């Protein structure tokens, strides 16, 4: 047996006998992969449903609203049975269709983290756009969870900020501005009805409940509502909204929502109180207090949510967006606005160079696999190899080795052989695991990819030698490797995209060879276009390799602190 094989076998034995190394080196990457894929990939059926309570401002309204449904103008009236037929029909003006517009085109739903498993219709629509759009929907990226939440909240906040800051002529924002309490919270504030009515333009609307019937007959349409849509002012908001929610319940998106309605024999007031308690306890995400008025004039719909609950905020956001669209549709329905007057718009993404752009979409697991492989390489080169060598070095064993005719090259060949075998096992495990559990479809046996993989492993080993060369004491070596691995991994885009990190951290992202390696790996697998040029993906890691080799060649010592 040659010296190389005996050293190699020694390390393999050590690995197999230490159950903790087996955990950290083999099981941990799989756990990490599974965890991240589950969190961000949404492989599970979502078990989140927005619990929304619909509360009439007065219970007497509910019956009348339902009754009214029979008298809807056809353009606005939809029964659950009609929903399916309507989806592909020409009835563009229906409120229901608005909802579908919202669900399919508007980003609100797409933004929610729940979208990871958004249904096939959503996926299809999005995939038509662009590969990357498809990616978003399949929840392939970090965006769909954590960062996305940031974006979402950001949006929600911007929504309000926009409403507050820029929509000066909007009655709602006027009402909001009149109420100083509103400025206290990000999303909300109890804008009082009073402020609305003082700022309101339709003093003839009587908010008192119970006088509904009279009002319906007695109120003149506001000047701005043109009579081009006869009968609309007779519709109650309650009826329109009821229709909307029934439509949602009948639609493909119904599983996102569960609407709770006023049970029989309960007063609206009591219902509101009990639902508020449920909201506090987290059993509801949103309460809607449905106005009693008719379309003859504006009315206020109150949304109760819990701002510290994320789902509650998302629910509020979704419903807000739907209601804004409803408003627009009502304008169109009333004839005060023609669809042609609206600006046409589209969203698209610019082209970036990607080598296998034909690939349509990928799953979170597919996005993660190259990253996790690279992460295990970092562990192998920076943690396993470094700690093995430094531990022998600190105990003087290495020096003892070299008191025999063993040549350094033989020793390194032995340990690197062990690292390569370990890495190979890791790659096979990760790949097998994700094929089995996440059904991935990646061509990791592509020769170019394998070559690049090897390149990545070499870079990681050179980092290891860099640390061994620069840091002498065993204790510090352990610390320094941890201090390097995590920033390299997290700021190298291994687990989620980091292109947008602000400030000085961005500098780390830019000089981090892992950034380029992950980009290169994903690009080669065709699952995510590289944000950096292919040349840089080779050059930057290679530069680190050169630095690592030079520095460690100059400063590596067999027996730091000792003589010789």
């Amino acid at each position, binding site marked *: 047996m040659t010296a190389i094989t005996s050293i190699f076998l020694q390390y393999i034995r050590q690995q197999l006998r230490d159950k903790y190394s087996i955990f950290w080196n083999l099981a941990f990457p799989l756990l990490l992969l599974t965890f991240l894929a589950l969190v961000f990939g949404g492989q599970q059926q979502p078990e989140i449903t927005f619990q929304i309570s619909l509360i009439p401002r007065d219970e007497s309204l509910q019956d009348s609203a339902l009754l009214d449904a029979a008298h809807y103008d056809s353009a606005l009236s939809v029964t659950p049975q009609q929903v399916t037929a309507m989806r592909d029909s020409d009835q563009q003006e229906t409120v229901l269709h608005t909802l579908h517009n919202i669900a399919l085109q508007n980003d609100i739903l797409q933004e929610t983290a729940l979208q990871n498993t958004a249904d096939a219709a959503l996926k299809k629509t999005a995939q038509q756009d662009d590969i990357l759009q498809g990616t978003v929907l399949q929840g392939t990226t970090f965006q769909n969870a954590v960062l996305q939440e940031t974006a979402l909240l950001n949006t929600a906040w911007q929504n309000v900020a926009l409403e507050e800051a820029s929509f000066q002529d909007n009655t709602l924002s006027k009402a909001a501005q009149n109420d100083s309490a509103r400025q206290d919270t990000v999303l909300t504030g109890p804008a009082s009805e009073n402020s609305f009515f003082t700022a309101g333009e339709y003093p003839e609307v009587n908010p008192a409940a119970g006088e509904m019937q009279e009002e319906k007959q007695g109120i003149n349409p506001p000047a701005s509502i043109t009579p081009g849509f006869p009968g609309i002012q007779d519709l109650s908001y309650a009826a329109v909204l009821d229709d909307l929610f029934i439509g949602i319940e009948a639609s493909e998106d119904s599983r996102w929502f569960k609407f709770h309605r006023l049970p029989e024999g309960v007063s609206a007031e009591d219902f509101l109180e009990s639902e508020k308690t449920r909201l506090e306890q987290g059993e509801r995400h949103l309460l809607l207090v449905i106005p009693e008025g008719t379309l003859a004039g504006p009315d206020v719909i109150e949304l*109760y949510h819990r701002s510290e609950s994320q789902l509650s905020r998302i629910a509020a956001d979704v419903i807000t967006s739907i209601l804004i669209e409803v408003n627009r549709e009502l304008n169109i329905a009333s004839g005060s606005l023609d669809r042609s007057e609206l600006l046409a718009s589209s969203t698209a993404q610019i082209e970036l160079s990607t080598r296998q752009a034909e690939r349509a979409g990928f799953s979170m697991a597919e996005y993660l696999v190259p990253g996790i492989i690279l992460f295990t390489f970092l562990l192998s080169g920076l943690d396993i190899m470094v700690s093995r060598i430094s531990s022998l070095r600190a105990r003087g064993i290495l020096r003892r080795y070299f008191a025999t005719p063993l040549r350094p090259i033989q020793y390194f060949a032995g340990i690197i052989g062990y690292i390569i075998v370990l890495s190979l096992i890791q790659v096979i495990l990760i790949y097998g695991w994700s094929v089995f559990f996440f059904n991935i479809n990646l061509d990791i046996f592509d020769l170019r990819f394998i070559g690049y993989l090897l390149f990545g492993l070499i870079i990681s080993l050179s980092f290891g030698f860099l640390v061994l060369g620069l840091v002498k004491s065993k204790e510090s070596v352990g610390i320094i490797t941890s201090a390097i691995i995590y920033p390299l991994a997290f700021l190298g885009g291994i687990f989620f995209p980091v292109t947008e990190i602000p400030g000085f951290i961005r500098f780390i992202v830019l000089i981090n060879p892992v950034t380029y390696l992950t980009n290169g790996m994903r690009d080669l697998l065709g699952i995510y276009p590289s944000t950096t040029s292919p040349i840089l993906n080779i050059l930057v890691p290679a530069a680190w390799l050169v630095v690592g080799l030079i520095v460690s060649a100059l400063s590596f010592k067999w027996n730091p602190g000792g003589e010789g």
Partner: protein
Amino acid sequence: MFGEKFYPDLKQYFANLKILTLSFLRDRQTVFFVMLLPLIFLIIFGSLYSQNGQGQANLVAIYYSETASLNPGEISAVIEENSSLAYQEVASFEEGEDLLRNYQADILLEVGDNRLDYYFNPVRLQDNPALEQQAALINRELDVRRTGMEEYLQLEIRDIPPDSSQTGTAVPSRLFSLFPGLIALGMASSGLFVIVELFHYFRERGVLKRLGASPLNRGSFIFALVSSRLPGSLLSSLLVLLASRLLFGVSFEINWLLFIPYLIIGTVIMMGLGALITLVTTTADSGFQAANILLTVMIFFSGIYFPIEFLPSYFQRASTFLPLTYLARGMQQIMGVSPLETGQFLLETGSLLIISLLLIIIVAKKSSWTD
């Protein structure tokens, strides 16, 4: 088994406390894993969660095509009134694309004949939904202005219960709840290992035996060792608070009367978990490794870096068995990130504390100082 020795002796307590604290804080590994590593993660995740959350406006590159029917004033007025947007006109579509590609612009808007086409950088997956939302807002507002739409349904959004915590900030909640989580993590790293160290490591190295041969009061030694970890928790929490303020401009309305005791209680609770590990392991090495693995698992499943809300429900259920979940939540309440739910808070903290103390006492009773 302790007999009269278990009741602490103040002089010995303070002498032990001094030594053990020094021993703890002088250790480079401690300093690194209890303080620097959380700080590194704070910076990494803080940066991630605060991306674009720092109030810097998103830039819209506007390209007016030859067929543009909207006049520049209309669009710029809308954008100017939105404090989170800024704009820049570009002379060609390609110029806009370049800006987009190089992250110098966030949205490219091509103005055509009564239409607006928005373009985004596909790489910015995490931002595009928000940016597309912005685009939709621009559209909506332009529609409102150009057509004089009616506002039929007026939205009033009310919060239940009134949110008394952070005010007037646009900081995402993820960023906000990161810091209490990190402080809880600091408590975990400083508390989890100590019981293993005491009853496995010190025993294996014969330190306990030598102490046992002196008239040392064991109670004061145990209490000193337990309290010697509190400066670690305290320092790491101060570091997190300082970093949150200096680096991310986030400050908290901390209930200090609860904060300090909670640091102590939380650290003791983590020691209880360490006691459990001590009970089920036989050597210091396996104890430390098990603690390490448990800590790693807790980092993932306690909602510190990653929101557990997004986990499948069986993982969410698993997280209810991890004390760190409760510590992170309790810390959030104390730091005003979420409202204090006194009853539940007391119940959770109280029962965890009692279980932990029981576990520590069981381990202390079971362990030998003389082997």
